[in-house]
């Protein structure tokens, strides 16, 4: 604490007197995004960026956006219910979700429920495949998802209102204001979604019962330019939602679940000479309440409050070398009806280095070590290289060591929590090939991940307790394709992804359950003047539901597609009216056994810019 205060004071003094080596325009560019490492230290890995035009064409849940536009496989317990990702055959706890540079996976169960993130609150969402623990800490094994807000100080003012209404009484609304006068920049987004979610099953009698949900979220990104070299930023998010959990049998007891998550990040960016110094303070909280019977007020709950202090110093030595040092201190305070009230303190230090050897070759190295009493952190690292051989071909290579820490539930659940757990750790390597020709961009990546000490809850006497027991090996390939073409006023954009994943339990030598061998997505967008037509589709291969891979019980493969049409009636400002058909072919499908998803249904939306 003292060290950081001293550093702060020192730099404050320096920045007051130093002349900016880079001009203020460069500073404005850097200040836009909080997560600088995503842009600067991801050259040797594959990063898929989803801009807000793609975000607006998809449904508002993060599950839906990533399911149709990335290689990540999702299993959902029904539409809108608990959703878990599997990225490169890894578990839900092995994918990190990073909000404006801060890892927001739950401290209680180690994962993020992708149906608790409203995509419209963000300006861009990026999917960074492969290891990232050396930068983002725990859980970045299969990959990481980055939710980013852009703070722009260019003078502008815009309001956007988007309303949608669809089948099953589904309402959605998003209002966004984005303005700057050069000194202040304010972006606030307010979203609300709700649905009765009582869809009929496609091939069976009955409907989705007790599936209603609502959520409200507020996301703000505010910047204040103190002067050309100093900026103050505040990012803030609140998400509140309630979901009733869908039933399989009408006679089951009805339950419901409430989430309340808040995230706040205060950041001071200052530029002096070749340095960019960032001081960040974050306060996060997560709370859930589970009502085992909706007719009763009794509930179980868990909550964690997290405080983070982070100092990030980046140094740019000309065009060739970039250096970045980050130190942070995190305190988690957890309490709940089923866990011991505990506090966890973690300190960490990271060092990142990137060197451009020539115009075409660069290599990057990052290392991280965490210091805490709660677990012994391994030495994490990532080493990668990128060779831009020609305009046509780029080669990327990366090897890393990553980890996933035991959660509050793993350590402190009463009864059964095990305070002697080690983190899960993984060694992984990947090779990526990028091809560019005509309007095409094709990325082919092969990877290998070796995970040990995987946490699994097993019985210990009469009580269940987590142990570091499993070894898992995953390997596979991913393909990402983009093609765009313009003919006069006609614009075409084609996207496709494909993943082949083998993920095996090393003891049983069997594919893990709920990991498909094949997953493919594709989308085609066509626009002509004010008209836009979009089509997206998803293919998920069969998954095993039995640990002995007895294929009699596999969940069938499914192919789902959505189509939409929109027209912009506006002259100066957009006035877009759109109509979507979801599950166009009325496919009967489920990603979790017996948790059927809706058949053909409709949605219309109105987007006004003013």
């Amino acid at each position: 604490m003292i060290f950081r205060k001293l550093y702060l004071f020192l730099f404050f003094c320096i920045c007051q007197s130093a002349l900016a080596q880079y001009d203020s325009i460069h500073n404005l560019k850097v200040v836009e995004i909080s997560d600088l490492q995503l842009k600067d230290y991801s050259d040797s890995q594959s990063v898929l960026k989803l801009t807000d035009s793609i975000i607006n064409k998809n449904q508002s849940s993060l599950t839906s956006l990533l399911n149709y536009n990335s290689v990540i496989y999702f299993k959902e317990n029904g539409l809108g219910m608990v959703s878990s990702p599997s990225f490169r055959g890894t578990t839900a706890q092995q994918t990190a979700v990073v909000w404006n540079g801060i890892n927001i996976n739950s401290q209680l169960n180690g994962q993020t429920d992708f149906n608790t993130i409203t995509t419209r609150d963000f300006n861009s969402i990026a999917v960074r495949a492969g290891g990232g623990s050396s930068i983002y800490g725990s859980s970045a094994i299969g990959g990481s998802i980055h939710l980013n807000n852009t703070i722009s100080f260019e003078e502008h003012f815009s309001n956007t209102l988007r309303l949608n209404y669809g089948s099953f009484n589904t309402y959605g609304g998003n209002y966004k204001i984005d303005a700057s006068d050069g000194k202040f920049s304010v972006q606030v987004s307010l979203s609300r979604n709700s649905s009765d979610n009582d869809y009929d099953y496609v091939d069976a009698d009955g409907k989705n019962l007790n599936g209603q949900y609502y959520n409200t979220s507020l996301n703000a990104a505010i910047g204040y330019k103190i002067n050309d070299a100093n900026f103050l930023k505040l990012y803030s998010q609140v998400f509140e939602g309630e979901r009733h959990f869908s039933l399989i049998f009408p006679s089951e007891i009805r339950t419901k679940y409430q989430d309340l998550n808040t995230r706040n990040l205060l950041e001071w960016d200052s530029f002096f000479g070749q340095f960019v110094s960032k001081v960040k303070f974050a306060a996060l909280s997560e709370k859930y309440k589970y009502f085992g019977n909706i007719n009763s007020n009794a509930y179980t709950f868990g909550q964690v409050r997290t405080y983070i202090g982070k100092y990030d110093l980046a140094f740019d030595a000309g065009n060739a070398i970039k250096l970045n040092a980050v130190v942070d201190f995190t305190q988690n305070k957890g309490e709940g009806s089923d866990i011991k009230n505990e506090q966890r303190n973690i300190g960490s230090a990271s060092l990142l280095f990137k060197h451009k050897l020539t115009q075409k070759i660069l290599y990057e190295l990052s290392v991280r070590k965490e210091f805490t009493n709660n677990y012994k952190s391994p030495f994490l690292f990532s080493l990668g290289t990128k060779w831009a051989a020609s305009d046509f071909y780029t080669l990327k290579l990366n090897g890393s060591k990553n980890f996933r820490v035991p959660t509050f539930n793993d350590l402190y659940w009463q009864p059964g929590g095990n305070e002697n757990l080690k983190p899960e750790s993984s060694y992984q390597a990947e090779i990526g090939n990028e091809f560019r020709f005509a309007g095409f961009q094709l990325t082919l990546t092969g990877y290998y991940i070796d995970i040990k000490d995987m946490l699994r809850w097993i019985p210990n006497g009469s009580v269940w307790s987590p142990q570091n027991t499993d070894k898992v090996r995953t390997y596979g390939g991913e393909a990402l394709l983009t093609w765009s073409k313009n003919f006069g006023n006609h614009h075409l954009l084609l996207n496709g992804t494909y993943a082949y994943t083998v993920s095996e339990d090393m003891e049983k030598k069997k594919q893990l359950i709920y990991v498909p061998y094949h997953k493919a997505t594709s989308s085609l967008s066509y626009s002509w003047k004010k008209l836009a037509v979009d089509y997206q589709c998803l293919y998920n291969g069969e998954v095993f539901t039995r640990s002995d891979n007895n294929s009699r019980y596999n969940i069938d493969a499914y192919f789902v597609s959505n189509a939409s049409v929109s027209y912009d009636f506006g002259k100066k400002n957009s006035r877009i009216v759109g109509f979507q058909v979801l599950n166009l072919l009325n496919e009967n499908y489920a990603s979790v056994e017996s948790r059927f998803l809706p058949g053909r249904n409709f949605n219309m939306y109105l987007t006004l810019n003013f």
Partner: protein
Amino acid sequence: MLFAGSLFLASCSSDDNSPNVSLGQYDNGVFVVNEGNSTITTSSITFISNSGAVEQDVFRNVNPGAAELGTYLQPMFFDNTRAFIISGSANKITVVNRYTFEYIATISTNLQNPRFGAVANGKAYVTNAADWMTGTDDYLTVINLSDYSTSTKTLGVWSERIIEENNKLYITNGYAYGDATSVTVFNPATNNVEATIQLGFNPNSFEEEDGILYVLGSEKLAKINLATNMVVGTPITVAASTSAGAKNLNVEDNKIYYTVDTAVYAMALNATVAPSAPLLTYESQSEYGRMYGFAVNDGKIYIADGGDFSSDSKAYIYSTTGSLLSTITVGVGPNSFYFN
């Protein structure tokens, strides 16, 4: 034990006073209830006939169009003609013909986390845990077996296993998370609790033989004289507090059988000291499912191993002298055996 009389009837031309006629395809054999997990397809019933033939997924084979049984199947109970299959999480009971396994009806009213059932005087009585956190709301569902209508009767104490004897119902008041240490005597004629017999330990299984109710807890075995509702003598210590705990009490052929971890112990009905050595032990890779199902019947010992609860597991049949007779693949999480 009945044998497959139908086969003999066909071959014997003038033998028409054979008493042993098969009542259906599922007569003369044993049912194994596979509890399953949260995935619907994992809950099933396996049938092992006395001739050794095994049929998996009996309910779905006989009733392909019927509604699913539910998940987390509890041990079944029977009356003379019917079998009642309880789904703990779907809060329903599926009624089938016990010999043909044809679907008859579904009961889904007034059930909340149903546990076990027994039939007395034309009614079925099912214990319900209701809210897992407390025992005060545990209740009995009383089912009219002619029209399957239901009513409830609050018991007010943790209630688990239930058996019928001499027109009275006996219920163990003990559960893994509960602190009850008694057996409740319920009179179905008056629809009231008649007595609560204190044991001093959590009971997990019991069986009646000749007017004595033998009750087993993790460490102790008690005998209750049902004429007086009093514990006879002092309970016998059968397992150490450091052990995995005793469970699966079965009384058969004047012997008491119980299991501790993967070992089976046998002692005489009137023994006063527990045996020091087991009758047999079996090999198990299961972490949670050791001796998950157990029964002794007609000179044979039946053991079901829970396995990993996410793939098909095994049942083992031993003789009462401890030699392995056969190993049979059954379904996911087999938890109990029932004999026709």
